[in-house]
């Protein structure tokens, strides 16, 4: 019996729950003030999130998936990416999208049920939200393949949840990306739940980061409530990818503080104590404490920030609400690059009907 191979999965955390440094901080964090933009972004995300839920509750938005609790993940990633990189996201990654330049109005438009929300003016090559779990991992492989083929120093960043790591798409993707050494970072937000299904039901693997071993690529686990750990891991992974050293899998351990979506009621399946416990580890508090301890943040800053976030979000919500509804033609155009003559009659008939009758549908 000999040893064919050995592996180690590392865990990275820099800040403890009260915001104290546990280890020497990485270069980008040695000046605490440099972390203020992270904190500001995280607060904006949380403000946006609350507004989105409020809009949904008042019938002004469709089903919405809250990002509450993953602000550190989103800020850590958002600030590590360059404009020319490509972001492939789930429905829970609006925070990264905001940092990429997608406007809150566009995000709300999407959640409001309008395709135009995915035609954002910002990062034009970023992917739209992927609803079918893990399916975007395969796209990330193709995007990264194209980048490599063209010898570009760009990186694809692909998000998934803990539940998504059970799906074949995820494995096929990390495996293929490893085989071709593609410039892609796979990021698992392990928030402990896939709707009502706990992490333990998904897999017997002790960590999700170790799934990287199946693909022969590096895997690392980080504290997903610690923005320094997240940002550091993503930076390292992107640097590897950019210089041609292939993909990395990052697992961020965090917690879904909200219901799965506004259509869900998490109290049906998880104990309130678990949620209360998780609140103690939440990412904003931790970073705020760190900044306060370092003397670069105080109550005045905080109040000013909240004020500006609120007004920014309010303005975006209003801009969303003021956006005229999509024209019915939107159903047909952009289905194909060129409208097919053979479908013209079908489309015209429906349009005619919509214009004459509106709809008398029960749904």
């Amino acid at each position, binding site marked *: 019996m000999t040893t064919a191979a050995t592996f180690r999965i590392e865990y990275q955390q820099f800040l403890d729950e009260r915001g104290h440094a546990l280890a020497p901080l990485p270069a980008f964090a040695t000046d605490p003030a440099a972390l203020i933009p992270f904190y500001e972004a995280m607060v904006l995300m949380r403000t946006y999130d609350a507004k989105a839920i409020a809009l949904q509750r008042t019938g002004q938005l469709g089903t919405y998936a809250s990002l509450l609790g993953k602000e550190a993940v989103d800020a850590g990633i958002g600030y590590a990416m360059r404009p020319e990189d490509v972001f492939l996201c789930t429905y829970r990654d609006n925070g990264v999208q905001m940092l990429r330049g997608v406007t809150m109005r566009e995000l709300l438009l999407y959640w409001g049920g309008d395709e135009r929300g995915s035609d954002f003016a910002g990062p034009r090559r970023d992917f739209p939200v992927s609803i079918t779990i893990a399916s975007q991992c395969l796209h990330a492989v193709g995007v990264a393949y194209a980048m490599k083929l063209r010898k570009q120093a760009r990186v694809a960043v692909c998000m998934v949840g803990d539940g998504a790591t059970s799906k074949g798409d995820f494995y096929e993707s990390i495996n293929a990306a490893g085989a071709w050494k593609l410039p892609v970072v796979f990021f698992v937000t392990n928030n402990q739940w896939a709707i009502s*299904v706990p992490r333990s039901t998904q897999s017997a693997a002790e960590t999700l980061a170790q799934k990287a071993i199946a693909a022969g690529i590096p895997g690392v686990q980080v504290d997903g409530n610690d923005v320094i750990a997240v940002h550091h891991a993503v930076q390292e992974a992107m640097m590897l990818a950019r210089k041609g050293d292939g993909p990395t899998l990052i697992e961020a351990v965090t917690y879904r503080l909200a219901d799965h979506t506004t259509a869900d009621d998490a109290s049906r399946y998880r104990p309130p104590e678990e949620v209360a416990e998780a609140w103690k580890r939440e990412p904003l508090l931790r970073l705020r404490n760190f900044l306060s301890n370092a003397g670069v943040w105080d109550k005045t800053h905080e109040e000013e920030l909240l004020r500006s976030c609120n007004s920014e979000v309010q303005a975006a919500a209003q801009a969303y609400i003021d956006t005229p509804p999509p024209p019915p033609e939107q159903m047909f155009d952009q289905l194909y690059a060129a409208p097919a003559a053979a479908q013209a009659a079908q489309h015209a008939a429906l349009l005619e009907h919509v214009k004459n009758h509106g709809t008398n549908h029960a749904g």
Partner: protein
Amino acid sequence: MAQITLVEAVNLALARAMNDDPEVVVLGEDVGRDGGVFRATLGLLDTFGPERVVDTPLAENLIAGMSIGMAAEGLKPVCEIQFSGFSYTTIDQIVNHAARMRHRTRGRLSCPMVLRTPCGAGIHPPEHHSESPDAMFAHIPGIRVVYPSSPRRAYGLLLAAIRDPDPVVFLEPTRLYRLFKEEVVDDGVALPLDTCFTLREGTDVTLVTWGAMVYETLQVADELSAQGVSCEVIDVATLKIMDFDTILASVARTGRCVIVTEAPHHCSVASEIAATLADQGLLTLLAPVVRVTAADIIVPLPRLERHYLPDRAQILAAIRKTLEFA
């Protein structure tokens, strides 16, 4: 004798089947403690325990494929795919294995499984939650495809599907889950899988439909009835193996036929019905066979969704066109 919704009827049939037959196992995403995102499996976990009411890892291909393995071992798996937009990943296992296990082993192994999934548009959900893949499944030799349209038929047909010794894809009209109630007797009596259901008898025109569109079609029929037009309304219910005799016989009497479905037009189940009429029913046709379907487009996000679904006005217009044809 309770008035219950369609999703409650599904729940009732599942509980009844699990109670009657210890080999029945329910599996899927969130079917346990959560009771399914539509609550179709509510209470089953408490009654039958986590070994028979199984929350699976998040993988539809796995859910379908492991159901085949369970079924080959003699269990009767009833798996849930959370939305039919996530059922495309099961097609490989359904076509290549579920549908063939009996045939390729000459009956040595078989596949008594049911794959349940909510189907169709109309609940204003995110992308991929409004799909109508009925035609894709109905094309597959070796399976049955069932699509009930009322609480009572959901109860009786689901029992039949579970008891059937072969694989059944059971599509549930999401839009009707809670739209209306009906009295359902929990008597364990299954409905037949080899027949359409004639919901209204009529003499002027045959309306053929299934799934959620049965709802609007019946409304239109009632409306027209008040105006003296007599519509026969047929709920196809079992899309495969389909009972064409009932449809052909009806059209032989009425001479006119309108087919209503919310699936895209091209190569749909409606096409099959119209095609069969063009062959076996041609001589009885007094007017062109009109299909009221969705356009061949992607279901739009909620802001335009209501324009996607065929509505009463479209059905009415089609019937009028058919009736006015001389």
